[in-house]
């Protein structure tokens, strides 16, 4: 019963996130000081130089459609929601006309997902390993040094780490590429190597900024769990340190980590956007950036709607890991 409540509650939050997010996206352009369509057209006109009247009209129609400016406010709202959730259609990209926005997004999404996913996993494994050991022996020199390192790393903003890494390893000591160019035939080793090579620095930037937090939180968890009665009892059963850490402390430390990860995924997404822009990495962040620079409103609305949906979905999936680990929710 508790499991059903948990899942139902979580899905309700998911629906709420999407509703609030899309409502914000719908109303924000309507309260903007400038008419977005005119602003757009002016920007496109400046960039493309010459356009004849029929082209301008076609664009105006497309833009009005994107912003859903036809009909009453309620109708517009309904049409907007339908486009996002039912048709998955944000129209053609204006800067890469006539490629559909969805196609650009579906090309970019795997890059962002892959980057965030692999960086999170690396940071998580490293952070847990170091945090467990530092929490197990908190008064050892290594434990203190690790916590000190974590405290210094964690508060540094993503873009600063990304900048420093790109300066150090692509410029001062140029062993990694400054911008991302993926080469190689599909499904070949060259391609894989190229991807790993180009993703290394951006992933490192995310790893460095997130793993400090993992160390801090896992260490605190470990120290608290060490004092728990069941750990003391297990120690008196003669269990080795490795088994105490692996079977008793780590699984119990994982529970709060899931909640934390779910709360932080939005912030991490923000970080990956900046990292992508700095490294010219072909993910969603770069696409959003390009959309802003080129005034491509279809693309902008599409990418931002999808960011919200993607982050909300990822958060929910992570939350669903909770009952997998905690039997108290599974068998309430």
């Amino acid at each position, binding site marked *: 019963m508790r499991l059903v409540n948990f899942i139902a509650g979580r899905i309700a939050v998911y629906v709420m996130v999407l509703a609030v997010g899309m409502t914000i996206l719908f109303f*924000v352009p309507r309260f903007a000081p400038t008419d977005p369509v005119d602003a757009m057209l002016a920007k496109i006109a400046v960039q493309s130089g010459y356009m004849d009247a029929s082209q301008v009209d076609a664009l105006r129609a497309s833009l009005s459609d994107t912003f859903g400016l036809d009909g009453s406010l309620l109708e517009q709202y309904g049409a907007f929601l339908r486009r996002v959730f039912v048709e998955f259609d944000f129209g053609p990209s204006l800067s890469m006309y006539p490629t559909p926005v969805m196609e650009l997004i579906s090309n970019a999404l795997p890059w962002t997902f892959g980057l965030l996913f692999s960086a999170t996993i690396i940071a998580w494994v490293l952070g847990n390993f170091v945090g467990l050991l530092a929490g197990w022996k908190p008064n050892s020199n290594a434990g203190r040094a690790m916590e000190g390192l974590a*405290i210094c790393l964690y508060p540094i*903003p993503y873009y600063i780490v990304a900048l420093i890494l790109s300066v150090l390893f692509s*410029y001062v000591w140029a062993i990694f590429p400054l911008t991302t160019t993926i080469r190689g035939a599909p499904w070949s080793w060259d391609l894989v190597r190229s991807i790993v090579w180009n993703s290394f620095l951006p992933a490192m930037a995310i790893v460095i900024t997130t793993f400090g937090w993992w160390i801090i939180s896992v260490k605190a968890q470990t120290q608290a769990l060490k004092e728990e009665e069941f750990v003391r009892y297990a120690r008196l059963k003669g269990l080795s340190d490795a088994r105490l850490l692996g079977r008793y402390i780590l699984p119990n430390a994982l529970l709060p980590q899931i909640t934390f990860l779910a709360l932080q995924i*939005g912030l991490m997404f923000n970080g990956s956007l900046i990292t992508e822009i700095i490294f010219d990495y072909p993910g969603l962040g770069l696409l959003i950036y390009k959309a802003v620079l080129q005034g491509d409103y279809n693309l*902008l609305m599409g*990418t931002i709607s999808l960011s919200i949906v993607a982050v909300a979905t990822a958060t929910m999936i992570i939350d669903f890991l909770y009952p997998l680990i905690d039997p108290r929710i599974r068998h309430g």
Partner: protein
Amino acid sequence: MRALFQDNPFRLYIGLALLLIVSAIGLVLPWFTPVDPLEWYTAPRNQGPSGAHPLGTTSLGQDIFWLLTWAVRNSLILGVSVAFLSTLIGVFLGLTAGYVGGGLDRFLSFLMDALICIPTLPILILLAALFGGQLSLVAAGVALVVFNWPFPGRQVRAVALSMREREFVNVAWFSGERRSRILTRHIFPYIAGWSAANFINTVLVAIATESALAVIGLSSASQATVGTMIYWALKYQALLGERYIWIGAPVVVIVALFIGLFLMSSGLAMRSSERRMSI
């Protein structure tokens, strides 16, 4: 005074010291600026450190030191006002939700959970695009408040919920104290510790988000903030020109500020969790 030093974690003092240094740079020094550091070509361009210009000058002929003080001032003002408003709204709505309960609580909790899940930066980028490519500090601040009040709100709600069950609150309740009085006399002092940690955390998030927006050129480029300073330095190829102080100074200050704020907030959180355990 002695007890203050003995009870508090060491990190609180390191954090405080870093914060005092950065605050001195941002809140005191700007009063003594000789010329408007935003004005271009008020100084010779691309100078190294000298007596007249302690940190040298930019490629636009601005004094880096005085520009930095203005940048730190604006970033701090933004961060503190966002944190102040977010905490105010968060504590108020969190207390209301936790204390009133029922349908209002359910609605507010849903709203808080939802707002927390929405990534802020894409929304800010959208706003910047709609405001013609640059977001004013005020607009950025308002948006940051909208997305940051749920963090203190959720925590305060959880504390308020557990407080409702506490003995001393019940005693107050049964002895006929008014509801508002119970809130201010019994619950609020208790929440203050958490709120302080949250406040600092929000300062951190606000400054980081605005400066991230600035670094990609979407914040108000005509205002000095730590982020816009980095933006201009990047734009004028400060790295290739080996003008490291131009880009390095804001980076060092923001890192010092962030480490200071983080140490403060984790120190305060540790303190209030200790206090919570001891009750």
